[in-house]
């Protein structure tokens, strides 16, 4: 069958999986202004922004002849739960004979889940399916690891654009991989490529870090969030995004009561301020904000689609949380009207804000060697600088011992 999927971040993994299952893959283009216009035209007016962008992508894919669109869903109380049915209905009304298959959590209704697997697996025997899943999981895991690394290193590149260009080549390399061995080899090669990019050397205490939280689609798809991560990197800021497809898979496949992956622990970190999950990733995002503060990040950028209910709940809580944690949080509400200049101006101002805060904190401890040491040590172990400083102060002759504690 001619199969396709929505464009969300790095899509090589999905492409590989569908190809290996014997489908002819119709590659979706990254959402452009045209996609958004198409989506807005055929979507209910008050639905969330990701729905509209995905609608646009689906229509474009259907125009190219896709018969099957595979996506993952959110069987939660937020509007994402009704995406598949409404998407299907709109496509039908437009006269496309395209089927939308959306996978919900496999714990909620395994039977329904397996029914959908049967459609997508295209007659592949189950034992082969497991091997395929393992191969693709390894691929996306490796690619996500590289992407995470890039978003840190790109802040210090000397020639702007080096990392982004290198990343494009790396994606092409991964697309050619057919076996796990090839994937692992490509991963090593990619690391070498990254290390070869000329970078500025910046001291630990001079580094500015920003975490990105928000609705999964808008934080993962750079064309939708106006390339927030690259803009921040170009301003010399390290970026850590909380959503990657491999993390999402782990979070949804590993039972909730286990302490790993980290997202399970983070999920519980927000119990105090967010006892209930309102649908999307609101509780998780709140947990990440706490986690970023604990690790000494300088700020958090919160991206939400215009009128996204779960993130709106978070938006209301952020002013108080930001005060409690003494960490600036900036929210950007995104929709098809959002201009790039608009996002850039705000990010620049936010970067100036956190930079001056970061260096003022440092200046107040200048002349106080313990303070500086404590700060960089605290960044490494992820606790508050003051605690480390308290540990250091009474026994200045044995700081090394205290630090390793």
């Amino acid at each position, binding site marked *: 069958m001619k199969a396709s999927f929505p464009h969300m971040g790095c899509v090589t993994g999905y492409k590989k999986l569908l190809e290996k299952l014997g489908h002819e893959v119709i590659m979706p*283009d*990254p959402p*452009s*202004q*045209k*996609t958004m216009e198409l989506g807005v035209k055929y979507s209910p007016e008050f639905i969330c922004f990701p729905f509209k962008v995905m609608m646009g992508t689906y229509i474009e894919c259907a125009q190219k002849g896709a018969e099957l669109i595979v996506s993952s869903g959110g069987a939660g109380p937020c509007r994402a739960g009704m995406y598949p049915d409404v998407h299907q209905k709109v496509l039908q009304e437009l006269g496309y004979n395209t089927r939308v298959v959306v996978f919900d959590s496999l714990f909620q209704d395994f039977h329904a889940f397996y029914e959908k697997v049967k459609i997508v697996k295209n007659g592949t025997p189950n034992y082969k399916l497991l091997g395929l899943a393992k191969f693709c999981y390894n691929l996306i895991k490796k690619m996500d690891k590289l992407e995470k690394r890039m978003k840190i290193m790109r802040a210090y590149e000397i020639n*702007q*654009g080096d990392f*982004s*260009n290198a990343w494009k080549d790396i994606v092409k390399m991964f697309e050619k991989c057919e076996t796990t061995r090839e994937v692992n080899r490509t991963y090593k090669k990619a690391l070498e490529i990254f290390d070869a990019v000329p970078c500025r050397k910046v001291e630990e205490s001079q580094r500015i870090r920003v975490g990105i939280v928000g609705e999964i689609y808008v934080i993962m798809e750079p*064309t939708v969030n106006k*390339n927030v991560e690259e803009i921040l990197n*170009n*301003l*010399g800021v390290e970026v850590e995004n909380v959503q990657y497809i491999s993390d999402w898979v782990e979070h949804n496949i590993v039972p909730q009561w286990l302490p790993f992956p980290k997202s399970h622990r983070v999920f519980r970190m927000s119990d105090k301020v967010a006892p209930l999950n309102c649908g999307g990733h609101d509780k998780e995002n709140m947990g990440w904000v706490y986690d970023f503060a604990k690790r000494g990040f300088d700020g958090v950028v919160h991206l939400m689609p215009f009128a996204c209910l779960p993130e709106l709940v978070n938006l*209301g809580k952020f*002013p108080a949380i930001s005060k409690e944690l003494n960490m*600036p949080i900036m929210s950007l*509400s995104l929709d098809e*009207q959002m201009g790039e*200049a*608009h996002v850039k*101006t*705000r990010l*620049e*101002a936010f*970067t*100036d*804000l956190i930079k*001056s*805060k970061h260096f*003022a904190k440092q200046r107040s401890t200048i002349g106080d060697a313990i303070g500086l040491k404590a700060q960089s040590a605290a960044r490494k172990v992820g606790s508050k600088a003051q605690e480390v400083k308290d540990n250091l102060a009474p026994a200045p002759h044995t700081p090394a011992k205290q630090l390793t504690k």
Partner: protein
Amino acid sequence: MKYYLGIDIGSVSTNVIAMDDRYNVCFNQYIRANGQPLESVKKGMTMLKDAIGCEDEDILGIGTTGSGRELAGVLVGADVIKNEITAHATATLHYHPDARTIFEIGGQDSKIIILQDGMVTDFAMNTVCAAGTGSFLDHQAERLGVPIEEFGDLALTAEKDVRIAGRCTVFAESDMIAKQQYGFSKAEIIKGLCTALVRNYINNLGRAKTLKPPFIFQGGVAANVGIRKAFEDEVGEKVIIPKYYNVMGAIGSAILAKEYIEDNNIKKPAFKGFGQLELEFKPTSFECGGCSNMCEVIRVISSDNEVLAVWGDKCGKYAGTSKASKTAGR
């Protein structure tokens, strides 16, 4: 005399200032751009040259800010290209180091900046709506047939309060017509508009923020005493209007340029000289068809067909084709 220059290219006005190395403003000019930012930059620079009689080598550094900062930065050769929020805060902190809240209302945007210990701790900018900006007032003044310069003074003569819906420019207008029909005077309606603007501003930007005195009010709209009065009524405190309220952004960018030049010990500024301004510049844009993004790429071309700057491309395809690379902000 040696000078640092600051240029603020906003949506409605272009402001040019010159500052000596002791932070004294020697020249300031507020020019209504009328949709031609490049022309107004040229005009402002020429006026500056004539007014203070300086030569190319007297310029120690230039900073640009505002929505046209990148374009103007390329045109004049700026050392620092900064966003409006940082520029405004820098200038305000220079004149009022103890400031805690800045209200800034310009032509098409309005911002609120919260400061603490001489540092920006929070800020907000209007997003999609022009209600609560200078354009809203401009529009209504035109409708009432009152010159915008007299608008504020007229508001102060009002005896009664009248509530006008200020959420949307169009609905404010229909509400205003209704109130006129009820027999309210022009002055009262104007006062109502001022209050509506401030209410809208505080609701939009001041949400969930603790506003603490001293309050500073700047931007072109600060000339309007009616708005100032409305702000004072709203916050219940005195609102300070700085001396150079309408060119604060430009002053801020000049200060930032000075700091940058001095911190990095730069001997030769990026300034291209006043002669450069005589040349013709043509900003052109085209839609790149290289991929489905269809980026609108903007190119500034000089008269001898040299590409001076390119931006707007998402993939960086054109980044290397110009003289000035994209260096904003770093």
